């Protein structure tokens, strides 16, 4: 028996006792109908819950009892004694069955038709006749002459309540009582600490008192029990969903699979109750409006079975629950039209809105876009009500829609007054808490893995192979630096939404603690640095840092940029800045950028024009087969894939990009040599990290694998490389790297290398020229070959060699490339 059924058993037993009392009270004083609604509601609840658990006997009895009660309620005056007795018998039967469920785990088989006929006898003449003919009514009343005192129902055929195993019983407790208990236990812990402090101040060793130790342990155990009392796993919220989805799908004649993720995420019981209705509503919407009909799905090449996913995760002390469907996306135009018709927006407002803003319009009142009112949804309860409910909980609701791919609704709700595991860090003279859930790693600044790169205003730090934005806690809080640089400070690597991370430098890390989070008063919430308050065991109030807010403010969020607003930006090479196009290869991945110089255009390729062959991906573009720079592509429900067509003049490759960002001017802040394959460095864009893609590397590794007829022809005309070719290296710093590494390597490869300190000293036109900056191999080097200027990291020797080797032969064949006049 699962928790839910156990809960049902406990609740039903409690309620049956209570309503029996109420019913008798009403019978005694028919004028006082105050308890009547409660009785009605209870019976209705039992009927509903038993239906949910598939307990047909209880459902049938409760249904009949409800009908009888309805008639009794509508009749003025006192209920007949016989009717009340019948209802009480029904209550007893429900109790009896519930007991049986609690021991056997299932409803025992049996026939209740006589009881039901007797219940309905009072209201239906037919049934009355049947009952009288069968003698049902007197039978029941005879069998239980004390039925009027049924709340004393431990006699007769019922199991005494004491026989019910303890574990199966539950008590409903108001949350305030739990809060009181929790704060009482917290007080006890503080008092214990006070006693310990006083004992110590008298020179006594606390650890010697076995009794004191024992008390501490017990207190800890009690506290964790109390904490757990409020928290329930989301399983409880999820439990009714499969059934609901099945039912709704059946009614609509759709096939739906539901997948539930994150059922182990714990959430305040109070929130489970508050979220239930909005969740059910959104699921109904997803199935009814979100998923297309089977025929429409077939037409767009999707699986006939629609997919709805409910996923939950904890982010800091918030819970994110997303409900996604793989339907056709929101009918944005229809929503806009409705919103305008309803007078919420004007056409000039619409002009300035991007798709995301337009999608948000569904949260306005009165915007049901359902074509037909389907009994399931569109009954006037719109997303505006859902949003209002979520906001009442201190939550946020977001919507993301992609035409042809579906809609994702995300509920972002707090889990206030819950326990979080946190790391206490010191800054100034106090401690702050960082939720453990956002922390990836904690390390000392002095650790070997950490390399500082304080560049410009925005700090960066390299930790092993990751380059992360870096901020100091004191800077964020406006506190003076506690310790001199290089002292034993700690770095906390924090996750940010969307996978990005940053490093928070703190003077000291103290301890892990389980903290009870209390909500912030508005005046402190407005500061924007904190998300909650806590009182740890030492009795010193502690503020919980709002890491999401801090990241947003001090790091910037890479997820903010989405709109495509191409700007004509001139490429300028003098300060190392260049024009880059930002994109994402999958949603949720960090932003990347490719040099605009290599971007030919952005194409949408039909899925049936993309093939995997021989472990490589190929796309058919303009009657030409081009390599796709990816090992595999993520699943998609769209009919096309967006790709960037990259070319350096003689190699072309398609780069998958689910999301195109912006054309921006970037400078590689960090030409890291081990950032990972395919990148030449990192740059900061509005404070967010952008990975700079080694476009040449991409072209080199993929561009040749599959070639179109056009490119193939070029290769056919190639002359083999031979003889000693002239090659220039310009190294203004005169560093060791060029002289002792580059020159020998290139000489060994058969080049006649000339090393000079100034570009002006290069005398032969057309020969490849490798120019280093004054920082030597630490910065990008410039390779001029065949009239094309490549900037590349010095470490990428294989690419370097390949360009140099191929440039002289390739150049004469590339008549369409500008600047080819420079070739020999």
């Amino acid at each position, binding site marked *: 028996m699962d928790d839910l059924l156990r809960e049902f058993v406990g609740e039903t037993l409690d309620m049956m006792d209570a309503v029996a009392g109420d019913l008798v009270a009403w019978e005694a004083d028919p004028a006082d109908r105050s308890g009547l609604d409660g009785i009605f509601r209870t019976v209705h609840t039992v009927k509903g819950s038993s239906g949910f658990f598939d307990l047909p006997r209880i459902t049938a009895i409760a249904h009949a009892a409800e009908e009888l009660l309805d008639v009794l309620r509508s009749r003025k005056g006192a209920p007949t004694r016989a009717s009340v007795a019948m209802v009480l018998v029904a209550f007893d039967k429900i109790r009896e069955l519930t007991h049986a469920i609690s021991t056997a785990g299932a409803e025992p088989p049996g026939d209740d038709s006589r009881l039901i006929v007797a219940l309905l006898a009072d209201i239906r003449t037919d049934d009355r006749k049947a009952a009288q003919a069968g003698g049902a009514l007197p039978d029941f009343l005879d069998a239980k002459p004390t039925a009027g005192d049924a709340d004393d129902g431990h006699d007769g055929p019922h199991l005494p309540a004491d026989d019910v195993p303890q574990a199966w019983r539950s008590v409903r407790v108001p949350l305030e009582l739990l809060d009181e208990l929790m704060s009482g236990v917290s007080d006890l812990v503080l008092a214990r600490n006070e006693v310990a402090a006083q004992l110590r101040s008298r020179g006594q060793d606390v650890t010697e008192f076995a009794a004191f130790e024992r008390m501490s342990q017990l207190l800890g155990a009690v506290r964790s029990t109390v904490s757990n009392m409020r928290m329930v796993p989301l399983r409880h919220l999820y439990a009714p969903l499969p059934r609901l989805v099945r039912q709704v799908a059946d009614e609509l004649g759709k096939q739906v699979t539901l997948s539930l993720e994150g059922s182990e995420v714990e959430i305040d019981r109070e929130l489970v109750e508050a979220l239930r209705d909005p969740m059910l509503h959104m699921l109904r919407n997803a199935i009814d409006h979100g998923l297309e009909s089977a025929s429409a799905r077939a037409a767009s090449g999707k699986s006939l079975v629609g997919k709805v996913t409910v996923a939950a995760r904890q982010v800091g002390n918030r819970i994110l629950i997303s409900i996604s469907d793989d339907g056709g996306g929101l009918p944005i135009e229809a929503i806009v039209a409705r919103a305008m018709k309803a007078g919420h927006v004007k056409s000039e407002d619409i002009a300035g809105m991007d798709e995301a803003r337009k999608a948000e319009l569904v949260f306005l009142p009165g915007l049901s876009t359902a074509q037909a009112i389907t009994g399931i949804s569109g009954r006037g309860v719109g997303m505006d009500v859902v949003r209002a409910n979520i906001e009442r909980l201190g939550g946020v609701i977001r919507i993301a829609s992609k035409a042809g791919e579906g809609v994702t609704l995300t509920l972002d709700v707090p889990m206030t007054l819950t326990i979080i595991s946190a790391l206490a860090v010191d800054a100034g003279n106090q401690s702050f808490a960082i939720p453990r859930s956002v922390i990836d790693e904690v390390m000392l600044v002095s650790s070997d893995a950490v390399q500082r790169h304080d560049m410009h205003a925005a700090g960066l730090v390299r930790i092993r192979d990751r380059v992360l934005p870096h901020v100091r806690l004191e800077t964020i809080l406006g506190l003076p630096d506690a310790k001199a640089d290089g002292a034993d400070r700690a770095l906390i690597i924090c996750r940010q939404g969307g996978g990005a991370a940053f490093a928070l430098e703190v003077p000291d890390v103290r301890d892990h603690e389980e903290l009870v989070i209390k*909500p912030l008063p*508005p005046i*402190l919430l407005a500061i924007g640095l904190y998300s909650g308050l806590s009182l740890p065991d030492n009795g010193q109030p502690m503020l919980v840092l709002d890491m999401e807010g801090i990241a947003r403010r001090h790091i910037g969020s890479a997820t903010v940029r989405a709109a495509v607003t191409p700007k004509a930006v001139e490429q300028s090479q003098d300060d190392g800045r260049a024009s880059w196009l930002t994109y994402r290869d999958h949603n949720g991945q960090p932003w990347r950028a490719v040099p605009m110089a290599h971007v030919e255009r952005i194409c949408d390729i039909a899925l049936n024009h993309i093939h995997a062959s021989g472990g490589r991906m190929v796309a058919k573009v303009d009657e030409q087969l081009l390599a796709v720079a990816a090992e595999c592509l993520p699943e998609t429900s769209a009919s096309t894939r967006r790709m960037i067509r990259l070319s350096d003049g003689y190699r072309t490759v398609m780069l998958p990009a689910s999301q195109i960002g912006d054309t921006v001017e970037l400078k590689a802040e960090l030409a890291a040599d081990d950032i990972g394959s395919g990148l030449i460095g990192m740059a900061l864009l509005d404070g967010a990290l952008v990975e700079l893609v080694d476009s040449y590397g991409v072209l080199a590794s993929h561009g040749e694998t599959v070639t179109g007829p056009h490119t193939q022809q070029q290769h056919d005309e190639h002359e083999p490389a031979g003889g000693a070719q002239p090659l220039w290296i310009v190294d203004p710093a005169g560093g060791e790297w060029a002289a002792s590494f580059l020159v020998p390597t290139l000489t060994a490869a058969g080049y006649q290398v000339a090393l000079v300190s100034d570009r002006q000293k290069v005398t032969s036109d057309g020969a490849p020229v490798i120019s280093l900056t004054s920082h030597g191999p630490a910065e990008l080097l410039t390779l001029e070959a065949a009239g094309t200027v490549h900037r590349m990291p010095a470490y990428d020797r294989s690419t370097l060699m390949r360009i140099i080797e191929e440039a002289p032969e390739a150049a004469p064949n590339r008549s369409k490339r500008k600047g080819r006049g420079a070739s020999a």
Partner: protein
Amino acid sequence: MSETAKGDLYLLCRIGATSVAFPAAAIEAVVKATSIVAIPGAPAAVRGLAAIRSRLLTVIDCAFIVDRPHGADGFMAIITVSGHGYGLLLEDVIDVVELEAVQPLPCSPQPAWQKLQPMLADYAGEPVLVIDSDRFIDIPQRNLSQAA
């Protein structure tokens, strides 16, 4: 407060050199102010956080709100506004007294006091400003944009 019945109880205390009375019904307790933890980034009127019997209080500096210099941290009057606990930092708490005839001020008070919308009463021949304790919470909140 003009409706105040005769003889209601008030907490008589001192903010700066001014005698102030809070309706006693709103005051849950008066405690000695000890170990207040600062809140970096908070508006100046917020002195910090204090814990009284496992309750967390946001400590509001009453003297600051009425443009008086910070006095000694004497006492805190504990109040609850919208479910959040606050401690009003007071230099001195004199007594709980009965006040009669609480009436509007005959003239405008100094601007610093004006925003608290005080009323006037008489205690043992001395004028006393009667202030709704909640106002000390509203004001720093409204001024937050300037202060922060």
